[in-house]
């Protein structure tokens, strides 16, 4: 896990920084986004949008500032992370702007641009002021307390579209659950990093490979996790509860290496999903919708949202209708948020959709890559946790709008309309940048003297 002290320190090893690569990729990302923006205007009105230059300049400036922050404070960071985030965010702005054209009385793109700017600002702040992701480990309990508060507060606010996950103050509204997922990831990573040996090797053996750790070790984390899931179920935010569940199971597995946990997790998930899906009317409706998306058509009530979404994807075909030329606005409510991927599918086609999925995959893979290269368990677990949040979120929402799994309300990272989501995703990328900088950069001196205690040769098995 840590390097043996026997190795002589490498003389003048020049580690690649790749900041030039990042800058050129950023230029590409901005150019592609502006091209998309122009092509929406050409498709819809046969004219270049009047503010195309401003959009390009704004996005370019954000990208440049973020790049400078990375160059200054995280020079060894993975050069792909920032350009992918900029491209996805730029593309999201294009899609929202495109859908705004269909709903003249409901303009979402300007607000999204403000939120994106805020997100990038937080990204820059995080990169500049958080020197080392490892310090977060110290604030694990603060994080979990904040997460629980954030999760519980919306209960006291009125429900919006059936889910009590919003806080409205003045004209602003945001989804605290979005921020809570980072905080919980930090807590899980921290707790598991500290207690993974106890979790893996102590306690009573139940049967075969499943070993139940002592309640003292397992208790706190399970109760916190259960608490958050129960709160979310009460708030009817199924997407996020599913996400927390998945995050917990994945991190538990990574930390302990016990397949049994996955089995238990899946079993619990199956039971929970069945119970909630059968008895909670809101969810039950969505399961029914998923099983037979065209039932409402046969019943003479016209196509439901999922059916409209499938129609949109189908209309895109291989190469799409072209930006601005689709009819995904027929999806109606939530076309700009939960269902924004349908617009991408219709107007960019299977080709564009595949590109988007691959961008996400690359982002996730780069996160894992950083985790693999790190040398301390907290960082590893944090990298895996944050990457898994992205991966699970993409799968749950994309699978939902494409009829692969039942629909759960969630935001497509960076693409969908939603301020809290964009800000949260920028913070996730900032943390990944931080972690990858540590993973790819020169190995830091051990922080704590204890860790420097030499380990006997040959005993490193992990």
């Amino acid at each position: 896990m840590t390097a043996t002290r026997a190795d002589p320190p490498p003389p003048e090893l020049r580690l690649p920084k790749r900041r030039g690569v990042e800058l050129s990729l950023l230029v590409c990302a901005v150019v592609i986004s502006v091209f998309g923006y122009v092509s929406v205007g050409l498709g819809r009105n046969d004219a270049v949008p009047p503010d195309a230059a401003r959009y390009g300049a704004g996005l370019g400036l954000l990208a440049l500032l973020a790049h400078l922050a990375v160059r200054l404070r995280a020079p060894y960071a993975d050069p792909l992370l920032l350009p992918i985030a900029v491209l996805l965010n730029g593309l999201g702005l294009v899609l929202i702007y495109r859908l705004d054209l269909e709903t003249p009385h409901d303009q979402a793109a300007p607000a999204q641009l403000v939120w994106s700017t805020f997100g990038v600002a937080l990204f820059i702040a995080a990169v500049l002021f958080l020197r080392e992701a490892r310090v977060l480990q110290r604030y694990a309990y603060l994080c979990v307390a904040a997460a629980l508060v954030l999760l519980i507060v919306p209960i006291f606010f009125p429900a919006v579209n059936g889910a009590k996950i919003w806080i409205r103050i003045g004209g602003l509204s945001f989804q605290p659950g979005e921020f809570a997922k980072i905080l919980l990831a930090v807590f899980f990573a921290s707790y598991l990093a500290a207690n993974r040996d106890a979790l893996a090797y102590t306690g009573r053996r139940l049967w075969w490979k499943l070993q139940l750790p002592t309640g003292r070790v397992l208790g706190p984390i399970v109760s916190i996790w259960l608490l958050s899931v129960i709160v979310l179920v009460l708030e009817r935010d199924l997407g996020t509860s599913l996400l927390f569940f998945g995050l917990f199971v994945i991190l538990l597995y990574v930390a302990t290496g016990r397949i049994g946990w996955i089995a238990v997790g899946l079993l619990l998930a199956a039971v929970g999903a069945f119970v909630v899906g059968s008895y909670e009317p809101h969810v039950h409706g969505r399961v029914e919708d998923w099983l037979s998306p065209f039932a409402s058509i046969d019943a003479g009530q016209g196509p439901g949202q999922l059916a409209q979404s499938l129609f949109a994807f189908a209309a895109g075909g291989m190469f799409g209708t072209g930006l601005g030329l689709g009819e995904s606005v027929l999806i109606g409510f939530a076309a700009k948020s939960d269902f924004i991927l349908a617009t991408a599918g219709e107007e960019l086609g299977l080709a564009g959709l595949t590109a988007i999925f691959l961008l996400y995959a690359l982002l996730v893979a780069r996160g894992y890559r950083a985790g693999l290269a790190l040398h301390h368990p907290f960082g590893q677990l944090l990298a895996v946790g944050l990457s898994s949040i992205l991966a699970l979120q993409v799968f749950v929402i994309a699978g939902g709008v494409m009829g692969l799994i039942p629909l759960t309300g969630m935001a497509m990272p960076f693409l969908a309309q939603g301020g809290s989501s964009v800000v949260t995703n920028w913070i996730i990328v900032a943390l990944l940048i931080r972690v990858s900088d540590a993973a790819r950069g020169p190995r830091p001196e051990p922080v704590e003297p204890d860790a420097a205690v030499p380990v006997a040769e040959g005993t490193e098995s992990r």
Partner: protein
Amino acid sequence: MIRQIRHTAAFCLVLLVALLVNAGRIQVVDADSLDDNPANRRQTVARFEQRRGDILVGGKAVTGSVDTGEQLRFERTYADGPLYAPVTGYASQTYGTTLLENAEDSLLTGTNPLLAPLPFWNDVTRGRQPGGRVATTVRASMQRAAFDGLAGRRGAVAAIQPSSGRILALVSSPSYNPEQLSGTGPAVTAAWTALTGAEAQPMLNRAIRQTYPPGSAFKIVTAAAALDAGVVTDVDAPTSVPDPYVLPGTTTTLPNEVDGCDRASLAFAITFSCNSVMAGLGVKVGAADMLDTVEKFGFNDTGIRIPSGVAASNFDTEMSDDQLALSSIGQFDTRATPLQMAMVASAVANGGDLRRPYLVDRTTSADGDPVSRTAERTYRQVMDPSTARRVRQLMVDVVEEGTGTNAGIDGATVGGKTGTAQHGIGNAGVPYAWFIAWAQADDAGEPAVAVAVVVEDAEADRSDISGGGDAAPIARAVMEAALAE
């Protein structure tokens, strides 16, 4: 932990593959069936996204498109809607399309691959070209003459150019304005309910979709069959059919409206419309030869398209002799569309060479580049040219000295045949008045027009209805318009 992280990454890869496979399933495999789902508004939206191409009469558009700015953007408009409704049909956002609007829909909406600059271009782009234009063979003056002649009475007119098969007029009356059905909403629904519920059936295209007993007008077909089969060799020689004529195998006698039909010649029988002679000749020709001739004229053909489908005219294939006798004078189960009877006149006028009738002269792209042109083709050589010559003369006699004098035109040779068809149970219905005719200017080398007119007027006093009285003047007006071109 390295191993577990790799496992987790592999798990994410599985999720990615599931998403990609699912996307391929929806966007490629299931795409067509989802596109065709009737609840999917996309095809409808795309369909009305651009101006629909126009239908032309004499080079001038009789249709138009108006931009409503709604989701279904362009709506159809019609200049002289009721006049051309039997030609154009309607193109409705609610009720679909009919007639030419239907038959040429892919061209008018721009999806026809022939409009694309390259083969499969539209498949690749999933787009469509600007709507093309359809030039019809209809002549505005003749259409107007026929429409005004019917003056709102129930009936129909079909006129054909015998030498080519071009349909010069196609009128059904009473008519309706297809523009009423163009859009969506309560007004359109109300118009639809009113039109479909109306007793006069204004949306029924009587010229090509309604069959009537042709009555005495059918005697031209029987005459041609008798001459071709050699049953009659001299049109002026007396036949052996007595008056009163008893239908074979029955005790029923067949009445005549005129005197002098006893053993009358074919010429007399046609000129003055003797039922007995023509019924008897039909029986002598025999079912097989009658059917042969009748089908050459187009009866029993379910596949006639102009390009809209034409209802099949009927002549029974199996009949007893008494039924054959009645069928030979256009009664019993014999039924014909007005277009079919215009084809009968056309075949006679064109020396027995029946040209395939068609309504679309050519189609072009929106820019006027040619897309297709309808080729003139022979439908059938119906009868021997010498037979045609003799039947022509019989028809001329009808107009010059017989029942069709109302159709005579100065400066032209006109041949015609009247018909007054009994129908209804026990012939209780008001009879249909028929007139079929052709006209050739004295200085022209070939007939300009063949026409069929049917008037079914329930309001009229029964005795007033006759082919010569009601239908012949309309036919004359149409023929005059044709000769004036």
